[in-house]
């Protein structure tokens, strides 16, 4: 009996010893081995490559009809084309119709979707930049350039849509409310955009159209300068650098959109049909194929402009909706066959379309080149501007030589060339014509346009999360 107690005492000592050893920190907080973890994920350049791809995944957005998902660039047309004189909803239904009538509410879900999508893209770019230490020296500047291009691109979209916005330049957490909810003046946002793009130009090459490239950064910086009305000569030099980089206009206008990654494309967001990497905006533009009954339908105003100025482009810009012949759809980015137009398609589910979204193409750069030479003036006869302008018109079959370019002529040409590619609203604002054109358009279509409608509201959700720290834009309550 005594022996047993002795043994038990020994056993106790043994258990206590084991217990003491087992309580080392490693045992209580082991590094997870079966899941990825932000603190330990970035070990090699391959991890950084995954983080780079992740940025484009953010711009691409999720193909879903869930309001809570980030749809990225797939919803951009609502905030740009449908807020211009180019497009509208087919049936004026739901919150999508707030854009065409200039009665956007701070609670509009699409306004929030785009805002959080592109701040998420910025977060993804900042994540890459926070882990540049694992990059190899030879690839460092390219990786940094790629992340900074994407960050600048996201900020350029956000600052033009929302005005003064929070400036987030590092990876932050939910606790960093000061950064998240402090609005920074547009000029400071543009400072970051310019330095990021300059870094990108220095680090990138022209090896990809679906990822950031030197030419994409040069084109974007030219547009950033023109948007601010500064550095016209630098903008012209940037355009000329792109013009000397081997891009050319696709001879047939239709093929710009139906021959993906053609010579004209400088930067596009790629989609894969019938896959998780597909897009649904193409279906939304059709008659009740997507979730809506049809959005981004053409206005009478844009059809008149295209009929008058489009040349060969008009045929491939809009078409009759055969289900509802009083309505007219956009032809660019169709997810289905159109035998009359010679457009083929292999997609089986139209809501999982594979049409890439073109962000920057060569025709845009040629017209920006002419705009840079115009340099804020009313007319130009400079041969370099005429040459670029003429190239775009020649492709459209409008071969009469142009001897002078006016501001209005350039704005009209951009509308005809780039209709439904999310340029029109920004062009009107950049040319200082937005208030004139949109108030007349709004009066004609029964909308309620005011000058304050040129900026979107800060999403109400953000203001609520900020507990009132984030102020609302003028004209919204």
């Amino acid at each position, binding site marked *: 009996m005594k022996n047993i107690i002795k043994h038990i005492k020994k056993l106790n000592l043994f258990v206590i010893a084991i217990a003491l050893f087992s309580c080392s920190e490693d045992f209580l907080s082991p590094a997870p081995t079966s899941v990825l973890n932000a603190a330990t994920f970035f070990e090699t350049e391959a991890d950084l490559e995954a983080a780079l791809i992740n940025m484009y995944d953010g711009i691409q957005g999720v193909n879903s009809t869930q309001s809570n998902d980030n749809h990225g660039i797939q919803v951009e047309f609502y905030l740009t084309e449908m807020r211009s004189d180019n497009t509208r909803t087919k049936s004026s239904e739901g919150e999508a119709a707030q854009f065409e009538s200039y009665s956007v509410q701070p609670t509009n879900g699409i306004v929030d979707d785009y805002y959080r999508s592109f701040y998420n893209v910025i977060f993804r770019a900042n994540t890459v930049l926070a882990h540049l230490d694992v990059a190899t020296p030879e690839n460092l500047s390219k990786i940094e350039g790629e992340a900074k291009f994407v960050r600048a691109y996201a900020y350029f979209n956000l600052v033009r849509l929302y005005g003064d916005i929070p400036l987030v330049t590092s990876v932050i957490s939910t606790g960093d409310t000061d950064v998240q909810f402090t609005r920074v003046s547009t000029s400071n946002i543009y400072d970051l955009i310019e330095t990021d793009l300059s870094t990108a130009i220095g680090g990138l090459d022209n090896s990809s159209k679906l990822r950031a490239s030197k030419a994409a950064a040069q084109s974007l910086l030219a547009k950033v300068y023109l948007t601010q009305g500064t550095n*016209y*000569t630098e903008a*012209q*030099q940037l355009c*000329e650098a792109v013009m000397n980089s081997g891009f050319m206009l696709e001879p047939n206008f239709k093929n710009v959109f139906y021959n993906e990654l053609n010579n004209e494309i400088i930067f596009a967001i790629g989609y894969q049909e019938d896959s998780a990497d597909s897009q649904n905006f193409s279906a939304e533009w059709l008659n009740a194929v997507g979730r809506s009954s049809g959005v981004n339908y053409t206005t009478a105003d844009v059809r008149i402009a295209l009929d008058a100025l489009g040349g060969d482009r008009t045929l491939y810009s809009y078409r009759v909706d055969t289900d509802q012949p009083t309505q007219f759809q956009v032809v660019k980015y169709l997810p289905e066959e159109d035998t009359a137009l010679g457009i083929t398609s292999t997609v089986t589910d139209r809501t999982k379309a594979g049409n890439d979204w073109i962000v920057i193409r060569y025709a845009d750069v040629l017209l920006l080149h002419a705009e*840079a*030479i115009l*340099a*804020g*003036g*009313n*007319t*130009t006869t*400079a*041969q*370099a*501007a005429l040459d670029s302008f003429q190239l775009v018109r020649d492709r459209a079959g409008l071969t009469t030589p142009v001897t002078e370019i*006016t*501001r*209005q002529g350039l704005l009209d040409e951009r509308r005809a060339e780039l209709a439904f590619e999310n340029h029109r609203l920004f062009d009107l604002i950049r*040319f*200082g014509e937005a*208030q*004139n054109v949109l*108030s007349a358009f709004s009066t004609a279509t029964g909308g309620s346009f*005011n*000058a*304050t409608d*040129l900026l979107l509201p800060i999403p109400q959700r953000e203001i609520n999360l900020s507990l009132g720290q984030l102020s609302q834009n*003028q004209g919204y309550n």
Partner: protein
Amino acid sequence: MKIQFKNIIWLLAFVLIAFTVQSCEDFEQFEPAGANSKADQTPPMASFSYSQGQGDGEVWKDYTFANLSTSATTYMWEFEGGGTSSDVDAEFTFPGEGMYAVSLTAFDALGVVSVFSDVINVVEPEEPEAIVPEILEASFEDNSLAGGSGDGRDSWRNSALGGVIQITSSPVQNGSQAAKFPSAGDRIAYQELSVSPNSDYVLTYYYTLKTNNPGSVTVSVLADGGHADLATALAAKIEDFEGTDQTSSSNYVQENISFNTGANSVISILITNQGEEARVDNFSIAAQ
């Protein structure tokens, strides 16, 4: 019994009157005016921005006004020189150049008013004229720089591109000196000029070559400035002219180089020679 009932009625009436009188005092606080009225918690704040019309003809007189007022429901715009509007945003065509006062009065539904005024300087935008740059020591004369200094070639030095030119006093085309490029061809003249982008210019100069050996003198107009390497400098050529006229070693030949500055606000002139001694004199530049 009857009297008792009457008394109760009287009592009730009295109490009712007392309550009514009392309650009337409370009512007064809901009177719209007076010492007890509440201030407008969200008074209007008038504000606007404006932009000048851009385009052909008289469009510069057309101004658009963007209403940036807060907490207001109705508006009144007043433009000096006549004109009012009660629209939210306004447009106004001014009669011509001058200073004009514009005021925006913003009202809220409680009749509270805020006024914002600004004076607008309406100016017709001028067609920008091309800059005409000054070529320093254009005729290679001594003491021709500001303050009477210079040895006739100080403005043409660039040791990264080549040796400094020599000066000759005969033959000359203008003044008493000209630039001399010995036959070795290892000397250059270089000068940067500020110009307007995308503008046409004509550069005029005179040259003569000795006639013993075949030779040439080339004047190049280069894009941008800051050149420090001869090969890259020559690759940035906008326009050039290689002079090979060797009919006389003493008579100067005039040359005009027409060029467009393109996307440059600075250009450079570079002069080189080869094979034979060259003399160059009397540069001038004019905008077309």
